[in-house]
């Protein structure tokens, strides 16, 4: 219990640190933040506009006051309004976050379903044809950037073979089948890199556990191979796989931004990229903060799951 409380505390502290960095980043950059956000293409911005923006962002107040009111806003789920159209940032995120989450969940599930059975099989038949084939493919998949996979999927499946739509989004309520069809390609594109990583980790981890003394003990007890695999090998081998999954969630969340763009998936990516382009700092800040918090929470969940799987963590 103490362990769990401590781990949750660390996560909360990290979220605070991340929020502070996102807030401070604007002030760390040399020069006047308002001028900085308005300057484009080297031309000096209009002083009146700069003064307006400064007032709007509260940049004319002392830094500490700004910091306090930023966290006050966070406490009320208020991330400010967009500089472009005055739309509340929180509303925009609330509307689009579920779609991004769905994509991430689908991709993670897909990766686990593909990587764990193949990784285990490859380890059990190490050096065999399947192992060599899969290890080779994993090396290739690791090398293809996520947006290249996405673009090539569109080129081959949609443009050339016409068996998949090139992208887009249909709400579940409108047509569940259509919704799922449109989910497949972006989820596959995101899952690709993670699958390769998890395949390698599962394979290495299963091989490692297979060489452990307690597996020899289990064999010496005359336990059936299937039961040794399920009770002794996988249970121990999957914990490092989980850790790697948590660590690679960062790359996965980043990959989502690219893939949503490639497939016109209306998640957080579109407002984020538009905001970066328009230097709409409140919107960028809100979305980056949301996704980073998500990343930290996912890792917290992984660690808690880890403790369930491995009793040594709880007492250690």
């Amino acid at each position, binding site marked *: 219990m103490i362990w769990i409380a401590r781990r949750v505390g660390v996560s909360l502290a990290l979220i605070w*640190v*991340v929020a502070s960095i996102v807030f401070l*980043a*604007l002030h760390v*950059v040399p020069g006047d933040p308002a001028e900085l*956000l308005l300057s484009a293409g080297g031309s000096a911005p209009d002083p009146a506009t700069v003064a307006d923006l400064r007032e709007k962002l509260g940049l004319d107040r002392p830094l500490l006051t700004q910091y306090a009111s930023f966290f006050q806003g966070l406490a009320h789920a208020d991330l400010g309004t967009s500089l472009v159209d005055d739309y509340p940032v929180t509303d925009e995120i609330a509307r689009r976050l579920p779609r991004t989450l769905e994509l991430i969940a689908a991709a993670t599930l897909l990766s686990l379903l593909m990587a764990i059975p193949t990784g285990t099989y490859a380890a059990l038949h190490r*050096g065999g044809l399947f192992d060599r084939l899969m290890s080779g493919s994993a*090396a*290739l998949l690791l*090398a293809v*950037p*996520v*947006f290249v996979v996405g*673009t*090539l999927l*569109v*080129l081959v499946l949609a*443009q*050339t073979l016409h068996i998949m739509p090139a992208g887009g989004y249909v709400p579940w309520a409108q047509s569940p089948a259509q919704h799922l069809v449109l989910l497949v390609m972006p989820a596959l594109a995101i899952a690709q890199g993670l699958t390769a990583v998890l395949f390698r980790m599962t394979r290495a981890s299963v091989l490692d556990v297979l060489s*452990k*003394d*307690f597996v*020899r*003990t*289990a*064999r*010496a*007890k*005359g*336990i*059936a191979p299937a*039961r040794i695999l399920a*009770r002794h090998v996988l*249970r*121990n081998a999957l914990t490092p796989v989980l850790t790697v999954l948590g660590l690679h969630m*960062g*790359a996965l*969340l*980043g*990959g989502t*931004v*690219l893939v949503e*763009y490639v497939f016109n998936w209306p998640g957080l990516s579109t407002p984020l*990229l538009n*905001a*970066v*382009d328009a*230097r709409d*700092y409140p919107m*960028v800040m809100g*979305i*980056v903060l949301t*996704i*980073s918090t998500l*990343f930290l929470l996912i890792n917290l969940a992984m660690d808690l799951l880890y403790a369930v*799987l*491995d*009793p*040594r963590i709880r*007492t250690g």
Partner: protein
Amino acid sequence: MKRAILPGGVVVVILLLAVLAPWLGLPDPVRQDVAHRLTGPITGHLLGRDEFGRDVLSRLIWGARTSLVVAFASAAIAGVLGTILGLIGGWFRGIGAMLAVRSMDVVLCFPPILLALLIVTLLGPGAGTLIMMLSLLFLPGFARVTYAEVLSARRHEYVEAVRALGATSPRILARTILPNVAGPVLVQLSLAVAAAVALESGLSFLGLGVVPPAPSWGLMIRGARATMEQAPLLLLWPCAALTVTILAMNLLCDAVRDAADPRGHPAAARPRVIDRLLPGLAPPANPDLVLEMQGLTVEIATPRGPIRPVRDVSLGVRAGETLAIVGESGSGKSITATAIMGLLPAAAQPVAGHIWFAERDLLILPEPALRKLRGGAMAMVFQDPMSSLNPVLRIGEQIGEAIRAHTPALGAAARRTRARSLLQRVGIADPDQRLTAYPHEMSGGMRQRVMIAMALANSPRLIIADEPTTALDVTVQAQILDLLADLKRDTGTAMIFISHSLGVVGEIADRVAVMYAGHIVEQGPAAAVFAKPLHPYTKALLDAAPDSDAMPTGIPGIVPSPHHLPAGCSFAPRCARAIDACAATAPPLEPATPDRLVRCLRWASA
């Protein structure tokens, strides 16, 4: 290193193309020619022209230049700064230094692309911004790796020695520690370059990295997406370039890392040489024996050729008798034991001999039948009880599954009762609490008792104990030996007890087999062997034991490598009594008295 040649070659070619781009006579990569947009390959434009009529080949090669400049610059900056930070942090340790290194980890709380987008918002897109943000992203990796290496390097004795000699900190860091850190930092560097190429292209693809019209693979893919239908090849070229570059870098990195960490890969299992079609041609010679091993030879395929760690070993054990196998590490005693259980690693194969148990030859018994015997009629206790128990399962489950594997009909409640009485039997005071405990919650002696309880679970006729007390405290050792002796007396089980310690063997063994370099060199009743050893090696072992009145004397030399066994007697190079004939003739194992065997040319003159 053979694996590094192909990817290394590809990386070198790409680097050369990028460096030499201005001198290759390529068309201007940014000059537009809208009249000839999307034209196919012609002379002078090998890969055709893009949507603005620019030469694709030229843009590909100049794009490599952009990508690699950004990647190498950011990796180099992060590498230098991170290494310095890690060196200083690791050397001066202190809270402040640790915080400085650790605070870099905050960068790892952000998904990389998102931190990059945050920075682009503030600084605007461009190559300068890219280099800055990529260095920031890679900085913590370098700082961490260096920090950890310095912490471990400063514990090395030569570093301590240089410090004691009064060298200054910067000098020690530069001359002594930096070379140690270089390997991991280089691996990190190559990882960073590959990651930087991927990130740069991703951001350029989003239109937030390299600013058009500068050539970049990411920008080329972004541009070609619009004309995908008319000119799919335009999309394929930069995709291929990007993938091949990252793949070659990854493979090169893997090969270099593997070369730095040479853990040999064991060869795949080979089919048994023993003729499976003619079992039982040589039936057991002695029906009184619970187990009889005849001429067992085990071969292991190693990268340096096959070795035979067990050669022509014959032994037997009766019910209620304890046979001790004694020898130094590498004598083949543990392999002999695992061969009985059929638990040899895949690379090791029995190539000759028979192991008779319950009137069947274990060496040719199919795996399912062998599995029924393992943990049932024959059981094994291993050396290290901590690693031999599964850390994530409760003790009760681990004993329970041993029972269940051989008596599947038994219900859960009956299994629990039996597990409980087994724990009582091996002297565990509070069996009910212990059944729900995990291995890490118990002491070493307690864990070994659990291992013994597991071995007893199905009333075996043979127990093989492989150095069961070596990993334990001296006081606990005595308790475990007493327990094993009690059990043998009560149950009449045959026991094979493997140990390198003659003192331990003297307490428990009825008969002793001494092994050296894969051979049995002497065998006989324990009392007789201890009183009057016939083989010089046995004598040397006894002299080396610390419990005699005289000062223990060591045995000169080491066990010969199984790759280079002496032609004659294996022990001759270390033997004080060796004569010329010993180096030339391999002695046979011959009977010295009716119940003693010895493998020595000169035993009679002992």
